[in-house]
């Protein structure tokens, strides 16, 4: 397993060009092309702002501007959920590669996660624009932690993507279950509501959700003034994510030989 993991480094050129291909292919043929990476999150933000400021306007005062608060969570969530949804299909749609070419299968889910990471990064300028517009107080020390949060999320997403992609080959139902599961997960994460709104019992439950700590970390760094107090939780999540990644890779490696026959 670790030998295979080390081999991944050799494939970085391949991963790099496949990510580039993925991005190029996605917007090929559309008029706005790469701008969709900016426009999509912007539109999403507009919809949520409309719903929560016009339709449902009751909120605690420390959450103003609410659109910005939500955006801090939705942007990384989009990366997370589209990665997993795409990963559930990636081995099956890439079946040709796995069956006919000597090809390291784990490259496919990894490419999916990385391509969505690029979309996430392209959405950041919108977020920065809002931060500047609302003149949010940002401390450089907190911002320095931002890449760390992204890294933890990357490891977590990769681990889950490996598990999901490998299992879907054997159980196609996962594709259908997953989209509902992701909706449930979305509402079980403090993204469109703050952690502080919950009773203590609810908070305990949500603390078991790894994405809670990612969302809260993003919010503390970008939205709330004051120190980044959630770093302990983030580190714990990072450790858990690393464990999950290794477990996911182990599972993927064990099922690897069955892919060529099952897809």
């Amino acid at each position, binding site marked *: 397993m670790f030998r295979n993991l080390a081999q991944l480094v050799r494939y970085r050129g*391949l991963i790099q*060009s*496949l990510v580039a*291909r993925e991005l190029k292919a996605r917007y*090929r043929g559309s008029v706005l092309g790469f701008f969709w990476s900016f426009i999509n999150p912007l539109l999403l933000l507009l919809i949520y702002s409309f719903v929560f400021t016009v339709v449902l306007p009751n909120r605690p005062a420390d959450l103003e501007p609410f659109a910005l608060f939500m955006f801090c969570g939705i942007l990384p969530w989009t990366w997370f959920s589209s990665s997993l949804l795409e990963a559930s299909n990636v081995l099956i749609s890439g079946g040709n590669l*796995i069956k006919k*070419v000597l*090809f390291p299968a784990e490259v496919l889910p990894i490419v999916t996660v990385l391509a969505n990471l690029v979309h996430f990064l392209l959405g950041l300028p919108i977020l920065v624009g809002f931060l500047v517009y609302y003149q949010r107080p940002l401390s450089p020390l907190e911002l320095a932690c931002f890449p760390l949060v992204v890294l933890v999320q990357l490891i977590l997403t990769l681990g889950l993507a490996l598990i999901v992609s490998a*299992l879907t080959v054997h159980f196609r139902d996962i594709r259908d279950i997953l989209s509902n599961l992701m909706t449930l997960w979305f509402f079980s994460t403090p993204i469109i509501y703050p952690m502080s709104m919950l009773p203590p019992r609810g908070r305990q439950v949500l603390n078991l959700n790894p994405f809670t700590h990612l969302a809260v970390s993003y919010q503390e760094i970008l939205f709330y003034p004051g120190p980044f107090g959630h770093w302990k939780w983030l580190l714990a999540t990072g450790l858990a994510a690393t464990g999950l990644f290794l477990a996911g890779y182990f599972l993927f490696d064990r099922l690897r030989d*069955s892919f060529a026959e099952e897809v």
Partner: protein
Amino acid sequence: MLAIEATDVTKIYRRYGRRHHFATLKSALLTGSLIRDLRAEERFAAVDNVSFSVRAGTTFGIVGRNGSGKSTMLKLVAGITKPTRGSVTVTGRISALIELGAGFHPEISGRENVFINGIMLGLSKREIMRRFDEIVEFAEVRDFIDAPVKTYSSGMYVRLGFAVAIHVDPDVLLVDEVLAVGDQSFTHKCLDKFAEFKRRGKTILLVTHSLELVERFCDEALWLDAGRIRATGDPRRVVGAYITDVAKSEERQLAADDAKARGEAVRAEESGASAEAPGEQPAEPPEVPPDMFKAGEGRWGSREAEITAVEIVGEDGVPGHVFHAGDRVSVRVRFAAREVVSDFVFGIGLFNAEGVCCYGTNTEIEGFEAERLEGEGEAVFTIEHLDLVDGTYKVDVAIHRRDGYPYDYHRLLHSFRVKSPAKDVGIYRPRHSWRFSPEAKLSVARKDPGESPD
């Protein structure tokens, strides 16, 4: 030095059981069969205990029928699938021409696809850059290289895939029946490329149905049958043995088809007869097709004289269904006359698979005067020299009156196959030869593979 060494390789695939199809994660978890379902219940060995080795610099061919495990073997050598038991060792860089252009993404340009495909096959960006022009030249897609590959014709697609794979400059090239694609000139180009590979001392493993290619190119051949090795060694010997075996199984197939056709004819006749007054012989046979040549297969007639058996026999006198062009072949018609018949004609017709009458004759046309037919006996029609091209032929056999009233007519109920090494076209092959004046210089490119040694 060995380039490929396969030792006791067995690859077991799972046959999909009905249960497995409907297995879901939920049911698997509920019934606790998650692990059990991942184990196979019904297995079959696609490759069964196969060992062979290929010396570096030689060309090795694998032949065999569809489903004999050739492609699985190739995938095992390529490392795409792992053997269930045994081991495969390959020395040097491999490139597999299994599915060409498998990694192409339809939305992006040919140029980008060449790069990505090259990287997938193990080249570095710099190496591809160096070979890029050569690749595009070889694939003959210069004008379209910047268009997305979804706009390519299937030929262009495959050519580009082939070009990339072959320019990986492998030490070991695995080829799976890819020459079937592309036009003549591209096929020649590929063959030239293979020849060049050979000259440069590279190893080629070739899986193909083109036996001619195996005989021409390979230094050694392997014949797989149902996953097992049937023969290995000198390509001409292996191919010869393979051809003989294919002929035998075609023989069985044709015999089964004939039996089925005759069975159906009898059933059709019986149901037709029972519709008439039973027990009474109808004066005129019930369903004589107005135009015999256009009629489908079947059997009809009043049966005053009956054809009890038809055998097609070769030179050895043994009834068979597969013959070589040029053989001496006889159609042996056994008859039984229920009463003494004085007005009778034996007729024979040969038809090819498209239903074209290749030859037809009868005893009256050839000037025989019918006198009497009684009891059981046989009439033998002998073709001294079977001058037909490769293909399947059907035979009409009949006994009828001079005015055409049929006693027993077997329409297209008997068939045989003519095997010919030459792929000449048409129906009839006249016995012929070529002669050239000195200005036309020719040499014999290939010996007749039909005359393979045993």
